[in-house]
């Protein structure tokens, strides 16, 4: 498949049998785009322990420069990070319409 965004690919540009010839193409799927809530970190209370990163089942949390954490485009909004956070610095915020 071409490197175009998926919603712009025409049927002619798709390989026979929708075969994918490039590895790692799943990275381009923003699988978190259907979440209904997302985690927000209060940095003043974050001790940068990485428990949220460890418990996330979807690799939806990335380490940021400075050792803090934030969600990425694979976060589904499950809230496990907020539940397990040692200091309670993560709150789940509903997605805006």
């Amino acid at each position, binding site marked *: 498949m071409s490197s175009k965004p*998926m919603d712009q690919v025409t*049927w002619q540009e*798709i390989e*026979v*049998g929708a075969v*994918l*010839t490039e*590895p790692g*193409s799943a990275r381009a799927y923003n699988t978190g785009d259907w979440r209904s809530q997302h985690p927000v970190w209060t940095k003043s209370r974050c001790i940068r322990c990485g428990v949220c990163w460890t418990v996330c089942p979807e690799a939806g949390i990335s380490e940021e420069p400075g050792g803090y954490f934030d969600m990425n485009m694979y976060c589904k909004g499950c809230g496990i990070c907020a539940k397990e956070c040692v200091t309670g610095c993560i709150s789940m915020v509903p997605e805006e319409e």
Partner: protein
Amino acid sequence: MAHRVGMEVSIAVSHAVQMSRAEAIAAYPITPQTHIVEHLSSMVANGELDAEFVNVESEHSAISTCIGMSATGARTYTATSSQGLALMNEILFIASALRLPIVMTVANRALSGPLSIWNDHGDIMAARDIGWIQIFVENGQESFDHSVMAFKIAENHKVLLPTIINLDGFILSHVVEAMEFPEQELVDKFLPPYHPRFSLDPKNPVTMGAFAMPEVYTEVKMGHQMALTGSYDHILSVWKEWGDLTGRHYKPVEKYKTDGAKILLLTMGCLSEVAEVAVDEMRDAGLEVGLLKLRMWRPFPFADLRKAVEGAELLIVCDRALSLGGAAPPVLAEVRSAFYEMPNRPRTASFVIGLGGRDIPPGVFKDIVAQAQAEAQTGPTEEYHIFGVRG
């Protein structure tokens, strides 16, 4: 030189697969397909066919195994019937979506229940929308020819679609007929080794069968649709090439004594030969009756059919399957759709015949024509007739 042989049609099909140099076969035996795969199994065991023959525990596994083998780039064959085809169902769609050129013989048989091992077209009609090329054959020679041609059609890089050859169970699969077998040299020249466009190869890895997000599923299906409708021209060119080599030419819609015919019968499969006998007798009696034989079922040959009925007043469609509770039996539904926008379309009459092995002698066609003629004046008593049903 080609040579004539007398042989059971199932065995001839297994020879066609052997002469096509199939490399991978996975099949589960089911009446009335059994003789085909039984003989292929013997050929592989005896070293007469250099292929991998995988014995599996079900048809679901048979077609799944075929998908895996075809994905490695092997020329792949299987055969089934009735319940076996039904058990394959979910995987059939995947074979065509992956664009794997598997060739399958379906020895058409009624679906249970009630349990019936005998012939009708209920099995393939229930698998109508699987996205495969689907061809019907009429006799032993056609069974042989189309089995070989199917590989060449399916493997064309502009087609790359699995292909089904439908042959009627028992009344065709189990009869002994005289057939002309070509030399191996001719088949080899006609059908070169299969070169896949993509194959499962660790040196050049690809992903087959990835999921599609809503943003792209429709586009993938459009590609499949365009390939299937576009396969029409390639099918015809393969048929022409075979015709030039063997003298046996095939068309999507075959005509028999249609010149000046006001009434046309339409049949599929080996019933067409019986209908020819009936047409001969009706012509002798002065009736302007002809016969259309629908060979190509998918892609559906809309233009050929529209052209074939020009000048006819009444088309009598003979289905060998039901669409219970539906608008029409499967073939009639398709034919009426093809005609709907035609300015001078013929009227249609519909008869379901030959279900579950019910014998259809030539007289049935004469009765059908008489009834359809009578109803052309008065209007049909039903949307479609299940002909000959008691009560």
